[in-house]
């Protein structure tokens, strides 16, 4: 009996192993995409990477009339093998510029392809040398947040970027030092973004309740309409440290982009917060990177962030109060935005 059982076991173990080996050998290899480091090959690779990964084709077609298939034919005839790398770079950048997306960039050792029309085509509404007069020389810095109390007992915070790792502790220390102020100005003009969670960390100190701030959706396949079902996103009130309860004005301009745009999206929903200035630059796609056969890096929007009403904010968010810098104020070395914000906060007392 024992010998019989061993024979059976031997038989099945052997055949099971053989079957598995055969199945694995028959399975196809997992190979890289077609690789062709010619001018045409790089052009096709760029078009295909964008075609399979970019997340705003439908929206850009609706808003700008961009037809990615038509673009392929229009630019393909501009490519030839005799062109220089600089010429190829120029054509590829032109093609990408059709999308008018600041998150779409082509990066080569000699240049950085971009379309920054979201702010270059509009008034800057920010004068760095005049804004610095308000900070003076004795301002404090908490992980990139520059802050000072102005003469009229209003706190002024200059937030130039979300690249630095601002945490609850930094924000709380800053808010604690301005606890006796009538109100707070958060100046994010020209803030091109950074880390999304840092933007949310700062915003979380201005709400006492969980806020539904929007939806998020990512691509689930190569098809242009392959998206996950949108998932709701929430801003939770800061659990550590101080939550600000007084009026706040946030100053924006067209240079507010990406994570800073998301910051405005969240702050607009917070109580006691007023957004003043110009429309933001937008940039509601989370960018991913890939590369071309020649080693140039391509960056593109890959994940879509919507607002709470499922609207895109790719082309910016309107402020509650529109402003523009006044030439007369500039002549007096005054920043119209900051002055209007102070006026507004003084009336809110």
């Amino acid at each position, binding site marked *: *009996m*024992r010998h019989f*059982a*061993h024979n*059976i*076991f*031997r*038989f*099945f*173990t*052997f*055949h*099971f*192993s053989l*079957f*598995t*080996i055969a*199945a*694995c050998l028959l*399975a*196809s*290899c*997992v*190979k*890289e*995409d077609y*690789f062709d*480091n010619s001018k045409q090959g790089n052009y096709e*690779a760029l078009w295909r*990477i964008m075609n399979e*990964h970019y*997340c705003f084709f439908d929206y850009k077609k609706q808003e700008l009339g961009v037809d990615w298939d038509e673009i392929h034919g229009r630019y393909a005839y501009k490519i030839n093998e005799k062109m220089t790398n600089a010429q190829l770079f120029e054509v590829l950048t032109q093609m990408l510029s059709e999308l008018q997306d600041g998150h779409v960039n082509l990066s080569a*050792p000699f240049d950085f392809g971009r379309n920054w029309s979201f702010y270059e085509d509009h008034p800057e509404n920010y004068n760095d040398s005049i804004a610095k007069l308000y900070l003076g020389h004795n301002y404090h810095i908490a992980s990139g947040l520059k802050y000072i109390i102005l003469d009229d007992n209003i706190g002024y915070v200059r937030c130039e970027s979300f690249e630095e790792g601002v945490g609850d502790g930094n924000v709380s220390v800053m808010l604690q030092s301005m606890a006796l102020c009538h109100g707070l100005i958060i100046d994010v003009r020209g803030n091109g973004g950074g880390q*999304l*969670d840092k933007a949310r960390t700062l915003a979380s100190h201005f709400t006492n309740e969980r806020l539904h701030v929007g939806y*998020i959706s*990512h*691509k*689930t*396949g*190569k098809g242009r309409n*392959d998206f*996950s079902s949108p*998932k709701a*996103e929430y801003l939770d009130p800061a659990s550590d440290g101080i939550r600000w309860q007084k009026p706040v004005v946030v100053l924006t301009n067209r240079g507010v982009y990406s994570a800073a745009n998301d910051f405005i999206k969240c702050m607009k929903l917070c109580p006691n917060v007023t957004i003043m200035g110009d429309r933001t630059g937008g940039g509601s796609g*989370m*960018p*991913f*990177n*890939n*590369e071309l*056969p*020649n*080693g140039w*890096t391509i*960056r593109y929007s*890959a*994940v879509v962030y919507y607002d709470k009403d499922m609207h895109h904010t790719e082309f910016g968010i309107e402020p509650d109060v529109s402003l523009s810098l006044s030439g007369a104020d500039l002549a007096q070395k005054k920043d119209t935005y900051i002055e209007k914000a102070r006026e507004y906060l003084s009336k809110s007392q």
Partner: protein
Amino acid sequence: MAILLLLSLYAYSQDSQTSNLNLQLGGANPQISNLNKEVLHSSMIGVGSSNILDTYLSSYNYTGTDIRIQRETMRMTNLWGGRVSNQSLIDLNGDINKNHARNIDEYAGGIRYSQGWFYNFFNGNTVNPVERSASRFNVAAGLAASGYLGVVYIDRSGNNPAQAKADLMIDVSALATYDMVIAKHHYLWRYQVTFPLIGMAFSPNYGQSYYEAFVAKHYDHNVVFAYPGNMPSMRHKLTLDVPIKRYTLRVGYVAQFNQSMFNHLKYHSYSHDFMIGFNKYLYRR
């Protein structure tokens, strides 16, 4: 596949019944039990080539150097009349690669741990075939439970610079040994092939960011069922044991072809390493 799995389990149950019968009759042969107290420890280090594709990070292959360390313990057990050997394997590797244009660096690495049980055919002993087997050629086959944790990182900014790798698998594995005698010296050849069979693996979705998966906790098919259809992988190991006085030198070649196609993301990690190390035989009291 499922039918064959069931048949295999049936065979397992048949043999278990035989084993139970043996126990009722007085247990395993004590002579076999004494033989089965030997344990083989093998430690090897190696270097070779690496080729990694991960389309979550890049559409193209990165190639370079692979460094590998393996620590293996094998012992015969008293299961099924002393015919089953147990293998414990720790496989640690690291890669430094570059893309086709050689202008972007990639770093990858991981650790795999597996526990396998092998049925030794033809009264064989694949732990110490030179001293314990009647035959010079031995074959064993069995199943192993293995787990892998790793990472692939590409040195550039962005929201997809790295990819985590993790799986928990049942592997099918077979090994063969051949005792080659030259001038009264025994040179032992050993070959092992392993195929991941079924299990679970981690993968982000096609365009899902790690921010979504781990910060916002928006999971989307991130734990996938793995089988040869979407994870056609295999690992080969060929070694030669060379006796040098009281020691046994082990030289070998390890080839690993790990592949997956989860959530429309393609991944492969091919490596070829030349290994060198030592064996140590211990006797358990």
